[in-house]
């Protein structure tokens, strides 16, 4: 899958494109966990270009959130569409992940 990476201030922004399913979750995992492993402490995953996520993608989000929490870093999602939001709500992820309305709010939250 295609993934865009950007940096704004101290915040690393990861933008997965199109679909995170069982086929593409591995590429998303390598990209996101790679960014965290290389020392980024404030990571914003921007879902503006994402249309679909399955439980394989939820797994990666939880791994990243745990890793950054352990590293005293910050992790937020933003620009989540209504369908994906429902997956996050149903799976109980909305309670443990920080979800911001848009990129500006995400950057503000992470101190970028």
């Amino acid at each position, binding site marked *: 899958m295609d993934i865009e990476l950007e940096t704004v201030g101290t915040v690393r922004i990861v933008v997965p494109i199109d679909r995170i399913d069982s086929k593409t979750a591995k590429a998303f995992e390598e990209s996101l966990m790679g960014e965290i492993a290389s020392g980024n402490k404030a990571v914003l995953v921007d879902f503006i270009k994402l249309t679909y996520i*399955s439980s394989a993608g939820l797994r990666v989000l939880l791994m990243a959130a745990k890793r950054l929490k352990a590293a005293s870093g910050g992790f937020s999602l933003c620009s989540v569409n209504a*369908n994906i939001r429902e997956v996050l709500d149903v799976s109980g992820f909305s309670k443990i992940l920080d979800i911001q309305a848009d990129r500006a709010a995400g950057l503000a939250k992470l101190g970028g």
Partner: protein
Amino acid sequence: MDGELHVTLANDLDEVGRLAALTEEFLDSHTQDVSLAFKVNVAMDEVLTNIISYGLEDQPAATVDVRMQVFADTLTIVVTDPGPAFDPLAEAPEPDLESDIDDRPIGGLGVFLVQQFMDHCAYARVEDHNRLTLTKTINADDI
């Protein structure tokens, strides 16, 4: 509007995306429910990933049969595979939806999402095949 989609999938995870596109096209032309295809695709993704990654691991040439039918206000999906007997509904543990981030287990949500997004799920072992039947009522306004 009544109709049926019948797809035979190869034993390959790429097929999940192909079915998703066909499902979207089928449901968009047979119902007015704009979120239905998304929910069905999440459910089918979980079901097919289990079958392809685990059930048919040792049978590369095996195929998975998917029949999707809209009849009146009900969507019925029947997924049939020739893998070893396995009831995904019986094996799935209750997911932990409440623990904080440190204690939340990674994974284990797949079958739960299927059950949340479909109204009814049933498993049967029929003629050496696993048969999973998923049904969902379509909102009256959306038929």
